[in-house]
């Protein structure tokens, strides 16, 4: 590890980052040069599809694979906050019980705290801290995902979409459109009936999807460009419960990593990610700056005018912008 932090220090740093406490940004600034080494892998899919169980088995398999005390694996498991109380029940650890006793594994539960993209606003920075601390692999489990929960694709190099055979021929990931961010598809609960139907439904969904690299983390970034190389997400059958297919799943993740390296796609995604991250932060800062400089008089005036429908909100925003004399 490159930082002289204990695990306790790390845990407390994560809390400070999550809360945006004073000192957190300074710590992140100091950490930043030490980031960029971890492989960051997102695991998403419908509620109950077996994400936590699978994450646990993947972490275990990675630790067993080399036989050395490597790689160090961190898990960030996100669950939704209650929109009513702001509280949350973070229960993903229940399925990660078997990882106990391995000091090369660190698990952190996070509440989404109102963010709608399937991860928390602070998840990216928490991943950076784990990366800088020296974890070689960071697994991010998103909240049970539907159509909108695709933000993990902005952080992860490889996104695994977990699908489980359901009742009937409904394929959750297809219905939700979340397949668009898949780099690898894991059909979990392969010990159950209906796996073959699920796989063929996924295959035909992939057949009609654009095949030219529009899959994966890239689909969620703003500047996706077409290079014609194309990656069709492989479908891997697993049973997290019976520990079957896990090694094959890790192999598929490795193959995707090799693809990212060999085609330069990884580098392109990385550049896009940096750019959209800076833009998002700039947008936030600009808004804050503008709100500080707009006078109450101007602000109340446009509020009233829009309220009476004599001014369109777009015109109101322009007026406020003009009042800043940029």
């Amino acid at each position, binding site marked *: 590890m490159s930082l002289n932090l204990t695990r*306790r220090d790390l*845990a407390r740093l994560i809390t400070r980052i999550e809360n945006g406490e004073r*000192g*957190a940004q*300074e*710590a992140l600034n100091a950490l930043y040069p*030490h980031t960029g080494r971890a492989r960051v892998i997102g695991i998403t899919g419908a509620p109950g599809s077996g994400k936590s169980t699978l994450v646990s088995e993947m972490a275990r398999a990675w630790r067993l694979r080399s036989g050395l005390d490597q790689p160090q694996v961190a898990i960030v498991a996100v669950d939704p906050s209650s929109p009513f109380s*702001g*509280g949350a029940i973070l229960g993903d650890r229940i399925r990660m019980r078997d990882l106990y006793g391995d000091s090369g594994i660190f698990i952190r539960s996070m509440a989404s705290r109102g963010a709608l993209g399937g991860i928390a606003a602070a998840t990216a920075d928490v991943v950076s801290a784990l990366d800088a601390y020296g974890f070689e692999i960071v697994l991010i489990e998103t909240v049970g995902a539907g159509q909108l929960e695709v933000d993990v694709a902005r952080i992860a190099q490889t996104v695994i979409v977990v699908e489980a055979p359901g009742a009937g021929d409904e394929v959750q990931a297809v219905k939700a459109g979340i397949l668009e961010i898949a780099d690898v598809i894991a059909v979990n609960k392969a010990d159950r009936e209906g796996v073959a139907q699920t796989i063929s439904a996924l295959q035909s969904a992939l057949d009609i999807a654009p095949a030219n690299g529009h899959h994966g983390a890239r689909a969620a970034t703003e500047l996706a460009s077409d290079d014609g190389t194309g990656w069709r997400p492989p479908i891997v059958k697993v049973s997290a419960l019976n520990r079957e297919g896990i090694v094959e799943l890790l192999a598929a993740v490795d193959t995707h990593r090799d693809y990212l390296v060999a085609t330069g796609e990884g580098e392109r995604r990385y550049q896009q990610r940096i750019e959209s991250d800076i833009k998002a932060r700039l947008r936030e800062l600009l808004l804050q700056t503008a709100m500080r400089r707009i006078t109450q008089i101007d602000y109340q005036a446009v509020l009233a005018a829009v309220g009476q429908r004599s001014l369109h909100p777009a015109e109101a925003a322009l007026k406020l912008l003009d009042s800043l004399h940029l």
Partner: protein
Amino acid sequence: MTTLPEPKPGASEISARPLRILIAKPGLDGHDRGAKVIARALRDAGMEVIYTGLRQTPEMIAEAALQEDVDAVGLSILSGAHNVLLPRIAEALRERGLSDVPIFAGGIIPDEDVPALVQAGIAGVFGPGSPIADIIAFIRARTPARD
């Protein structure tokens, strides 16, 4: 080696953050209904509850408390093994430098066992039928002291 800047604690910074509470079920009995009721009540009180499930050893609980940086640890115990397990959990937390994290316990704990448990570091013991409001008040009273 990089040394991170020390946080400069300010008066205002801890006010808005949700409390993080670990709720665990030590021992071998398989009933976690009580633990789930508490977990839900704490969530509804605006807290973030890390729920670890059944059959947790003292070491598992302490390790989870460390990784999750919780503000308090709550234990639900029905097995009758409280006199053995609860002090061991307190000890496991101390060994990891977490002696400042308050521990509370609920379940079937006879009154005569309470003083020894308090002595062993279990700051709050809540018998059957304790109002959840008491547990919430306990957590709120104990937690702001932490940095």
